[in-house]
């Protein structure tokens, strides 16, 4: 099952993604987390270090190719495959692949085509894939999120967050991208305005899968740069995400 988390920058995609990964880890299944946001901070939220991203590998291969460093008889698919495997952060609970920086100038058609295939093949080895996608809509129009089973659109109560959620819903329809399910997750909701926000959210036409309330603990962790996955078990945010996961898994 592939679960993608999208929404406007700053609405809390990474919070939801990291806690989903934490909750899914409990199931003992094989999990691949993909940080597809160039401004990535999923590794920080998960509390792991990343040496090399897919973006770094892409540049490395380009440079090696330009300088004629690749042995004539070796093919680049295998080299990329190896390097991607090498860049994966492996933990006992899950594996993490970070896409990293966007492309530089020049032609990336070939290398991106190879990467797409390699990551597709790699993904087949996992029970669950969680993708923290780029902010905004580009991933949709570039059709990088095509085979997603569940797409969660995260928004806070800002107008712009809602607007983005609305657009994602529209665009997904227009581009005929077949998500099996497309849901809204409301984040950082203050209880006193919940009713109003839910009403506004319903205008997006997306089904609300869960509501995460404003949480001082999360703010504190964010400020101190503490990994969000270390939130205590009784954290209300963690429990809310746990509920979201149960609904995704239809438990």
């Amino acid at each position, binding site marked *: 099952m592939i679960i993608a988390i999208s929404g406007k920058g700053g609405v809390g995609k990474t919070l939801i993604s990291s806690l989903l990964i934490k909750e899914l880890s409990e199931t003992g299944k094989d999990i691949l987390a993909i940080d597809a946001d160039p401004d990535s901070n999923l590794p920080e939220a998960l509390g792991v270090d990343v040496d090399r991203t897919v973006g770094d590998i892409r540049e490395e291969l380009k440079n090696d190719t330009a300088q004629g460093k690749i042995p*004539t008889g070796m093919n680049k698919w295998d080299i990329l495959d190896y390097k991607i495997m090498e860049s994966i952060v*492996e933990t006992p609970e899950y594996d993490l692949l970070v896409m990293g920086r966007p492309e530089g100038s020049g032609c990336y058609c070939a290398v991106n085509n190879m990467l797409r295939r390699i990551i597709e093949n790699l993904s087949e080895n996992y029970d669950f894939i969680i993708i923290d996608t780029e902010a905004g809509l580009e991933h949709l129009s570039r059709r990088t999120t095509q085979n997603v089973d569940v797409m969660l659109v995260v928004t806070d109560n800002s107008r712009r967050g809602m607007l983005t959620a609305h657009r994602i819903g529209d665009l997904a329809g227009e581009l005929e991208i077949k998500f099996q399910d497309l849901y809204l997750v409301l984040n950082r909701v203050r209880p006193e305005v919940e009713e109003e926000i839910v009403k506004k959210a319903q205008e997006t036409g997306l089904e609300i899968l869960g509501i995460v309330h404003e949480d001082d603990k999360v703010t504190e962790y964010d400020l101190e740069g503490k990994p969000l996955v270390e939130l205590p078990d009784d954290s209300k945010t963690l429990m809310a995400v746990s509920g979201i996961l149960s609904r995704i898994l239809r438990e």
Partner: protein
Amino acid sequence: MFEDIPVDVSPMYEGERIRSANMFVELAGPKSWGAELVQVEETVEDGKVEVIGPELQDMGEGDIHPLGIKIEIQGEALEKELEGVIERRTHELCNYIKGFMHLNQRDQIWCRVSKEALEAGFKLEDLAKALLILFKEEYPIIESIAITIMTDEDEVQRFVEKARLQYEQRDARARELSDEDVDVFYGCVMCQSFAPTHVCVVTPDRTALCGAINWFDCRAAAKMDPDGPIFEIEKGEVLDEVKGEYSTVNEVVSQRSQGTFDTVYLHSVFGHPHTSCGCFEAVAFYIPELDGIGIVDRDFRGETPLGIPFSAMAGQCSGGKQVEGFTGLSLEYMRSPKFLQADGGYERIIWLPKEIKESLSEYIPGDLKDKIPTEEESANIKDMRAFLEEKGHPILDRLEGTPGEVEEAPVQEEESVEYAEMDMEAMPVAPVAYAPEFTMPASGGVKIIFKNAKIYAEKVIIKKN
């Protein structure tokens, strides 16, 4: 067939990855070393399997060990040249074994064995046994085969060193692989989303314009994804060996460019040069004043002697167009022995950015190295001519053969418009060159600039002294 092997062996397990969480041991890979090598021998003890060093059962969970896979084969029809091709299959065949992960090739392999496989009783000996059967099945020309698996540190170390020598020899042979040696070229239409009529033709002597894929990569890609953007082109009949014109290439290019082009010369910027995508690493451009060719790459920020930078030039000839006098190319192609061979190769090159020139120093013929100017020696045509004359560049021989001094041509300001309107189409002439912009040197304080000029000539005389 695999009754003796305690785990499943089937192509369905190809692409299997073993997460460190599910892994029993890691063999070779980034934290250790290893290699695989296929060797054609005179005599081989058929079916012999040997494990030198600790077996899986002697290893501890989470351990990392070196790994060597030596495959010796014998057969009437087997030649040393086939070693690389057969060795390439090791990756796929190893991956048929459930619970055994194998990545990459040569001395860059990376393997893992799953906990599940170990629990089923899988041994390295079984890996060798499975490979014996799979290789023989895959290649009936293999008459006898013996496989040695090494995990002993010193043994693997020695083996890797020996294997590296073999790889080097093979690469040297591969570098020599030329268009004549193969029956199949490859086409690539990956860039058609923005260059709808661009068809990249990839041959052993010509990598794709983006520089990212060579003939070997295409062979792998076409096999992996037969319906993908990279496909085989039967070479067909050779129409012009020097220009690089082939009947089937012409047909396929016509078909894949929706009938836009029906002729392509692989090794020339004149006549019917290769189409240009837009993401090429460099552009070769004809400099009509000096009858030579300049090359500028994407990273060069300044202006070329034509007075325009790379970006403007790329704009003129990209998008899948076939523009006479221009062709996109990869930097690797400049290392090819067939590099623009129909135009004279490096003897025709009269300008290169310094960085590129330095990186190619091994490939530019020795006597030409000092004769090709860069942006440091010549920023414009005048300087370039002076430099070429001073150094005695072979292009001068060509220039001497061209009739008439341009400077002496009658030029009148203002009135000259009338000349420009002369009817020139009536003459049955062949196009010689096309330039988005070029400047002709002229005396009397005037400069003549042609924009989007197409040069036609009734006759082109190339004289050799």
